[in-house]
């Protein structure tokens, strides 16, 4: 029985104890506040405006700008949203309070990862994708196959996941917001310069969405044009592996941290 009758007792065990409760709480931040519709509104307006969907149909321009929208503008959005996701709770003591309840640290980190990942997937990636697809449908331009289009959205999700997991890891490693924002924002701003060097470029998600120097190609643009993306597989693989690595580091470090 719960000590406080207004609380609902949730049983659970193992390393994910408390996960469901924490996930509900994190999801509520997105879907039971104004956050979801503000994000939806913002990205809808930006998608229509940046891709010039109301003007003359220009598919290659729209595909290139879709890369800019997702690789630059939405990446900034991911960093802005994630910079405080963990740090605020570490600073104001909420993290310590939550962890004084029967909830494990991996559950705490993973609930944030899933809730924020889902929030961004829906309000940024899916929404922008649906708007673009609908506009192309209305304009009567040749559409990429649905599988190609879904793969393109998958590429964007991977790029966003990289910034999400990086910022989450940085928030675990540091308690200084300037350092967290400096690293993640600095990396994003430097990406254009760094990504043109092959060994470094493979490590960054920049080339997945934004058109490469002089090539005007990226997996996202190629998929939207119905082309294969075999040559980009190393970049995709490395970025995916980095996401896993960032989460593992975050979990490992957070488990040892004194809050």
């Amino acid at each position, binding site marked *: 029985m719960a000590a406080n009758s207004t609380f609902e007792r949730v049983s659970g065990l193992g390393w994910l104890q408390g996960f469901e409760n924490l996930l509900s709480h994190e999801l509520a931040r997105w879907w039971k506040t104004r956050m979801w519709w503000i994000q939806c509104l913002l990205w809808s307006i930006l998608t229509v405006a940046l891709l010039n969907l109301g003007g003359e149909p220009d598919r290659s321009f729209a595909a290139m700008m879709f890369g800019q929208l997702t690789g630059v503008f939405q990446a*900034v959005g991911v960093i802005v*949203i994630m910079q405080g996701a963990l740090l605020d709770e570490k*600073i104001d003591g909420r993290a310590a309070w939550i962890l004084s309840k029967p909830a494990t640290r991996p559950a705490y980190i993973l609930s944030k990862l899933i809730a924020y990942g889902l929030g961004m997937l829906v309000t940024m990636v899916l929404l922008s994708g649906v708007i673009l697809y609908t506009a192309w449908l209305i304009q009567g331009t040749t559409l990429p196959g649905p599988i190609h289009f879904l793969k393109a959205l998958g590429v964007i999700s991977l790029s966003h996941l990289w910034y999400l997991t990086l910022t989450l890891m940085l928030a675990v490693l540091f308690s200084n*917001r*300037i350092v967290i924002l*400096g690293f993640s*924002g600095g990396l994003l*701003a430097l990406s254009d310069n760094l990504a043109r060097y092959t060994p470094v470029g493979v490590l960054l998600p920049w080339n997945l969405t934004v058109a490469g120097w002089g090539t005007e190609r990226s997996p996202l643009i190629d998929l939207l044009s119905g082309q294969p993306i075999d040559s980009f597989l190393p970049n995709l693989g490395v970025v995916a592996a980095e996401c896993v690595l960032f989460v593992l580091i975050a979990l490992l470090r957070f488990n040892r941290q004194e809050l």
Partner: protein
Amino acid sequence: MTANRALTLVTGHGWLRGFGNLLDNELARWWKTPLWWIVSLVYAALTFFLLNTGGFRNEGMFVYRYKDSVALFHTVGVIVLMQGALMGDKKDGTVAWVLSKPATRTALILAKLIAYSLGVLTTMLLVSGAVLYVEWLILGTVPPKPLLFLKALGLAFLSPMWYLTLMLMLGALLDNRMAILGIGSGLLVLSGKLLSWFPMLRYTLPWYLLSNAATQDPAGGVMMLAFGWSIEHYTPTLVIVAVECFLFVLVALWRFNQDEF
């Protein structure tokens, strides 16, 4: 006599009461912590990297890269540093505590404005400028006259200053860090697009002061002053951006004076 012997009594009056003390405190955040040398080091390394990775090395490319890339990083740095300058103190109660002492709200805002401006000017702009100048010397070209170069840097400072005052104003107006960061960084990444959609905004945003847009005269922005180019065409933008900075500070002061902590 002060109630606490460890405290130093500082007399003052009027709307700037406590300004000296508050300025000392804000300056100490920059110059008595590792912040100054970390920021200086980061911007020295960044400038060196950016100047030398733009392709071929010559004086024209250095100026191009300086305006194109280094200036962008000054703005990113200003946004990162300023997002918490007022907001952090508001959230953790430092502002309320400081204002319970004999210090005015105006003094607090102006102390932050001056200390952060000085920090940004020195550790970002002057450090980057020094690296650029040394690169010119190493390259063996005739560098611009130091005074003219400093004058150009001073005008270029208006761009980060615009973002600095904007972020300060947003910190006074809003209590949501995500909104402050979103507006500041959103304006930075959207500036180029905004100007293509609404060309009449060209005088109101600092974007063209340092951009390499071909439509500029001279192409390359106010830094061309260092080489003796006339920057007459930039006068309206310079004046309007300076007025906006002033306006942002006034709005910050007005709002902060009405806020409850």
